[in-house]
């Protein structure tokens, strides 16, 4: 149990503006304020809000257990603070420093408050230190969670971004694949391709794998499944962009793409698709 003494809480309340000034000065010294992704005013406002929440919660709360209701507001405040910093690309160190740099001014304050009582002083320094550590840890955890959310969202965006189905000609769709073809991506790709085949009434789909660095058995299996699904819809599929080194690797791996029409590049695949559609390309006289 390490609830702060009433005298500590009173001291913080009475010296609020001095503490804030010292806290901000500390942040400034550490270089936390010279980042153009966050303004000084914003940090000052956050510092003020946080100090008030800290006082309110530690007047009733048990410092050893942040999961309790008394700390809900402080926790939420730190989670929001972490999220906004994560979204702006600030790092965890910068975010955690916000809390940890409150230690110095608070310790200085305690020195004054408990000048004649070394035992109380050491108790309160310990209590404040423990409390700020816990809050700092919570901030770091919240920050990491926010970062993970940001990364996950980017991954999802990438997933869709990297699977654009383009119409090359009436009845001819192309899907330029780029990057690693994992199961999740293949699923997204396959769905959007099949969807577009229906929407556009296309009968030829070209899957271009120029941008796929490795064609192993898993990628091959995904490709085979996609081709089968396309055929089940009554359309034809051409795989293009099989570079020489990939072709040789496929042979050694023992993959059988026998039933699939393949072309070295997208241009050849398009030429074939046009031919199959009964079209010829001629040079204008």
């Amino acid at each position: 149990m390490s609830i702060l003494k009433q005298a500590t809480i009173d001291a913080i309340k009475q010296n609020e503006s001095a503490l804030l000034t010292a806290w901000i000065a500390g942040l400034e010294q550490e270089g936390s304020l010279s980042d153009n992704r966050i303004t000084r005013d914003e940090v000052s406002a956050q510092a003020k809000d946080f100090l008030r929440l800290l006082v309110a919660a530690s007047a009733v709360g048990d410092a050893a257990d942040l999961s309790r209701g008394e700390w809900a507001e402080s926790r939420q405040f730190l989670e929001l603070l972490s999220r906004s910093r994560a979204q702006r690309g600030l790092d965890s160190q910068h975010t955690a420093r916000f809390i940890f740099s409150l230690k110095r001014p608070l310790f200085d304050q305690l020195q004054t408050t408990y000048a004649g009582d070394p035992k109380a002083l050491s108790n309160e320094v310990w209590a404040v230190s423990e409390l700020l550590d816990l809050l700092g840890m919570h901030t770091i955890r919240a920050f990491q969670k926010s970062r993970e959310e940001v990364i996950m969202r980017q991954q999802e965006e990438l997933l869709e971004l990297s699977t654009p189905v383009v119409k090359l000609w009436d009845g001819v769709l192309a899907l330029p694949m780029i990057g690693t073809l994992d199961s999740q991506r293949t699923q997204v790709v396959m769905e959007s391709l099949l969807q577009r085949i229906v929407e556009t009434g296309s009968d030829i789909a070209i899957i271009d794998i120029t941008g796929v660095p490795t064609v192993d058995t898993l990628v091959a299996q995904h490709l085979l499944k996609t081709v089968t699904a396309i055929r089940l819809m009554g359309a034809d599929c051409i795989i293009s962009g099989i570079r020489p080194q990939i072709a040789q690797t496929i042979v050694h791996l023992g993959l059988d793409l026998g039933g699939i029409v393949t072309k070295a590049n997208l241009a050849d695949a398009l030429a074939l698709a046009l031919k199959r559609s009964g079209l010829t390309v001629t040079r204008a006289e």
Partner: protein
Amino acid sequence: MSSMRSGTFALRSEQDVVLGRQAVRKLALECGLRLVDQTKLVTAVSELARNAVIYGGGGDMDWAIVEEGARKGVQLVFRDNGPGIPDIKQAMTDGWTSGNGLGLGLAGAKRLVDQFDIQSAPGQGTRVTITKWN
């Protein structure tokens, strides 16, 4: 054969398989492997690393840049402490899979590299060593 530089790479997830491939591509470049040999080695890595993750329940890849006379190469050991393979001959057969793969990973990897050695027994985990020379 002498080893010039070596290290270990964890294989726990599909993401690690991708990272492992990238790491080996760098090593292959460093050893002066031609593009087609780089691609072959990296593809073998993809197969063996994924087997370690899927069947072995995760494992490690030891890597080393090795030298023998004038030639340089990449040597890799894929180890896991999974269930092991009861019948290696069967597992090495094209088209045989206990799961729902194509059953080409092991046999294909062997054809893609210069040296291939597999050791496995039920309850003993699996250890596959491959080398590709420049």
